[in-house]
């Protein structure tokens, strides 16, 4: 039978088609999957066929579409789940309040915070402005549907080199163009909805050309009594769809996110790209939070990947019931949408509320005042099935356990042994001073002020520490954003990102651990005690065993570190298939850490404060040059990737936090890219003050290794001179004296380094301005 004959157009009242899946050959099953854009494999199509054989009928197009959404990598984590279960999901903590669309953690006896990090990679590679903006929109919804007010955004981003003009493969946009668009998208969405962007990161590497990564994170704040479920209260309730109208935009976004990008993606994937409408979202958030505060709703979930098709089933099934949907009621942007399009559309700015019939009028009043659309579209029922009515016909009737069950794979993976010291090639480097200036100018280190000042990091008037620290308009880099969520309390929330894709690519296990280490040391640097983590795991095609091996090892490292430190990961996100025709993106396990500050008045910033204060390094420096910026910049290869010694990290974090709470610490900065030398230089830049340093205490290493090794778990600390004795008593051998703050230059004994602070500033401040204009 030819393929066309399998399709019974208008099988259940136009424009719904029925597909004769039972008569299809294997080839035709795959054709069906391709033709409908389902991205399902042959085996998956076969289990679909079995299911409908048991039901004794043929599926409709809308039913197949729904399965395509629910079973996509993006929605059901079919390749990653086994590994997450093994290393991540099991980390428990009494402060975990909810693991929903966002995780929710206890803040104090009365309040909680929500956290989530998510990717919007593929859409941003195609349309950077809209892709990034809708990424912000999506993460805000995840936080709002826990009942929480978004209070901060975090945006770690990865691009190809912006300072290179090497020819680009066809269909690939210039990294500069992408950076410009992504930053503008985050700015225009984040600033408009009034949520401060307080932290983030930029990573630049050749392997992100054609594979840019746009991760966006959000923190929310909520009374513990107002934390919401992402499911309905039970049968007999109604579902209210609110916010934007539904259109053709965003159709097949999740299946698009679950395949590799092709050269032709730009032209073909238009439907997957949207611009986002912050000014629909802003009042929508107000209205949703208001009806929650008033106790009018039983559950809330956002419409993200898969649109209605995912949200209705999941909200009902998680409460052990089903739903009957009246598809005619969904407010549309344009006429003529097929039912399946309405069902899977990913139009932005929509939320679903669950409530009981008697509350509907009061809810509508709130939405009317905010000029936001709200429409009852479904009711919940006992039986665990979803049924859809359309123009008087029933066009969809599916068992929810089957639909949202989804496959789970244990795909083959390959773990390769890191080359380590055996494969090491030590690079030729220029004079140490020139090397330092060169590292400061590397776009991975250089000032990101160009982007940071385009984001409002002060709105909501609760920002205690910003991404840049130091005297106004003369700042250096900070370590973590700190907020004071309650005006009546001095308790604070800090957030920072950790990730080293270069470590991860050479040694995924250590790379995963390093991400946790870095997030924690950023938090501790400002005086926050790490409390929870969320992650966004950006990796390549899981059907390639080496890529899946990287994924597994990184997750193992990340999970082990988090478990040891007692840090739950109550939410997260996986983004696979980050591959373009030329190569895969660097494996990038992005970690966002959240810490609690007992008293924000004791927070510490990274800028040097006072001439004469002694400087110490906390943490051991080893010969760990693998993946270091020095090697990348000057052509080194291999080498040991920095390990994480969890016991030692924990001891040092505790000691440092104690020293800070006793007021001994004047400034503190963690060592990461570029090692100790870059760390000290950045503190000088932020404080407009030099320092005299000696590295004798660091033992038997070469000068370049002492300066530029990127060993984990280290901080440079400026101690208030009057507290030095207490500090020494407290820290013992964990802190090594390395010099004194002050003077017009950074002097490092035994290395010939003597660089004026202005020169450090220029090297660090100018490059990105010059590239981005």
């Amino acid at each position: 039978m030819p393929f066309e004959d399998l399709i019974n157009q208008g099988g259940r009242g136009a424009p719904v088609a029925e597909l004769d899946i039972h008569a299809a050959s294997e080839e035709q099953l795959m054709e069906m999957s391709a033709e409908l854009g389902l991205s399902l494999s042959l085996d998956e199509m076969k289990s679909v066929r079995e299911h409908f054989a048991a039901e004794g009928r043929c599926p409709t197009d809308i039913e197949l579409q729904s399965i395509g959404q629910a079973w996509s990598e993006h929605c059901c984590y079919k390749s990653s789940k086994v590994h997450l279960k093994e290393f991540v999901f099991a980390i428990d903590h009494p402060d975990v309040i909810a693991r929903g669309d966002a995780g929710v953690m206890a803040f104090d006896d009365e309040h909680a915070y929500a956290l989530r990090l998510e990717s919007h990679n593929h859409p941003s590679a195609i349309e950077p402005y809209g892709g990034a903006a809708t990424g912000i929109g999506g993460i805000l919804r995840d936080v709002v549907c826990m009942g929480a007010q978004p209070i901060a955004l975090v945006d770690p981003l990865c691009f190809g080199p912006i300072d290179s003009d090497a020819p680009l493969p066809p269909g690939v946009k210039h990294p500069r163009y992408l950076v410009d668009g992504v930053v503008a998208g985050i700015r225009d969405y984040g600033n408009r909805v009034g949520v401060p962007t307080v932290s983030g990161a930029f990573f630049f590497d050749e392997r992100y050309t054609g594979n840019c990564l746009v991760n966006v994170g959000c923190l929310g704040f909520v009374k513990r009594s107002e934390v919401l479920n992402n499911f309905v209260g039970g049968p007999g309730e109604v579902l209210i769809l609110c916010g934007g109208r539904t259109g053709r935009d965003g159709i097949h976004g999740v299946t698009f996110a679950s395949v590799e990008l092709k050269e032709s993606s730009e032209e073909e994937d238009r439907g997957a790209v949207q611009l986002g409408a912050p000014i629909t979202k802003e009042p929508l958030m107000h209205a949703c939070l208001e009806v929650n505060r008033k106790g009018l709703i039983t559950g809330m979930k956002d419409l993200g990947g898969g649109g209605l098709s995912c949200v209705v089933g999941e909200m009902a099934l998680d409460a052990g019931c089903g739903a009957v949907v009246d598809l005619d009621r969904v407010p549309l942007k344009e006429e003529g949408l097929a039912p399946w399009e309405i069902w899977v559309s990913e139009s932005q700015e929509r939320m679903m509320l669950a409530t009981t019939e008697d509350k509907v009028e009061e809810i509508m009043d709130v939405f009317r005042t905010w000029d936001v659309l709200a429409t009852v579209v479904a009711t919940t029922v006992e039986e665990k099935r979803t049924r859809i009515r359309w123009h008087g016909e029933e066009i969809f009737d599916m068992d929810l356990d089957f639909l949202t069950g989804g496959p789970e794979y244990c795909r083959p993976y390959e773990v390769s042994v890191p080359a380590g010291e055996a494969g090491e090639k030590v690079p030729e480097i220029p004079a140490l001073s020139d090397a330092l200036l060169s590292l400061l100018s590397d776009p991975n280190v250089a000032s990101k002020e160009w982007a940071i000042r385009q984001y409002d990091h002060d709105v909501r008037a609760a920002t205690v520490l910003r991404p840049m620290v130091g005297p106004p308009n003369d700042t250096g880099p900070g370590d973590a954003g700190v907020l004071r969520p309650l005006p009546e309390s001095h308790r604070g929330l800090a957030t920072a990102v950790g990730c080293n894709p270069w470590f991860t690519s050479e040694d995924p296990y250590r790379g995963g651990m390093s991400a946790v280490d870095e997030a924690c040391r950023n938090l501790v640097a400002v005086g926050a005690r790490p409390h929870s983590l969320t992650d966004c795991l950006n990796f390549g095609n899981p059907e390639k065993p080496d890529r899946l091996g990287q994924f597994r090892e990184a997750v193992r490292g990340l999970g082990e570190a988090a478990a040891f430190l007692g840090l739950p990961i109550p939410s997260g996100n996986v983004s696979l298939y980050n591959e373009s025709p030329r190569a895969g993106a660097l494996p990038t396990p992005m970690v966002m850490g959240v810490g609690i500050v007992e008293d924000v008045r004791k927070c510490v910033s990274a800028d040097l404060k006072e001439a004469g204060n002694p400087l110490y390094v906390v943490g051991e420096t080893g010969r760990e040059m693998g993946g270091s910026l020095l090697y990348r910049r000057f052509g080194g290869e291999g080498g040991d990737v920095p390990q994480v010694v969890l016991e030692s990290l924990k001891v040092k974090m505790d000691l440092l936090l104690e020293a800070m709470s006793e007021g001994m610490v004047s400034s503190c900065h963690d060592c990461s890219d570029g090692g100790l030398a870059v760390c000290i230089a950045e503190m000088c830049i932020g404080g407009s003050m030099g320092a005299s340093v000696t590295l004798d205490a660091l033992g038997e290493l070469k000068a370049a290794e002492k300066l530029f090794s990127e060993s984990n778990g280290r901080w440079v600390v400026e101690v208030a001179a009057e507290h030095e004795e207490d500090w020494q008593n407290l820290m013992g051998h964990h802190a090594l004296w390395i010099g004194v703050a002050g003077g017009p230059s950074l002097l490092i004994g035994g290395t010939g380094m003597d660089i004026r602070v202005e020169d450090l500033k220029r090297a660090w401040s100018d490059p990105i301005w010059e590239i981005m204009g």
Partner: protein
Amino acid sequence: MAVAEIKIELKKGVADPEGQNTKKALELLGFEGLRSVRSMKCFQVDIGLEGDEALEACQEMCRRLLANPVIQSYSVELK
């Protein structure tokens, strides 16, 4: 010498929040019967070239910077 007028429009089917919000504002101000408001970005470029050469250069600008073919279309007119 030619001054080129470049017009960048959103393709059909791409939502236009700016146009929609402007339409809503105009309606609230009492303008009736509006069917649609679309926003566009326009540039007037004085380029120091003539005729086809000028056209070609402007189209190249659109392709490389001003427009994203995924969501936008462009047109160039010499004045």
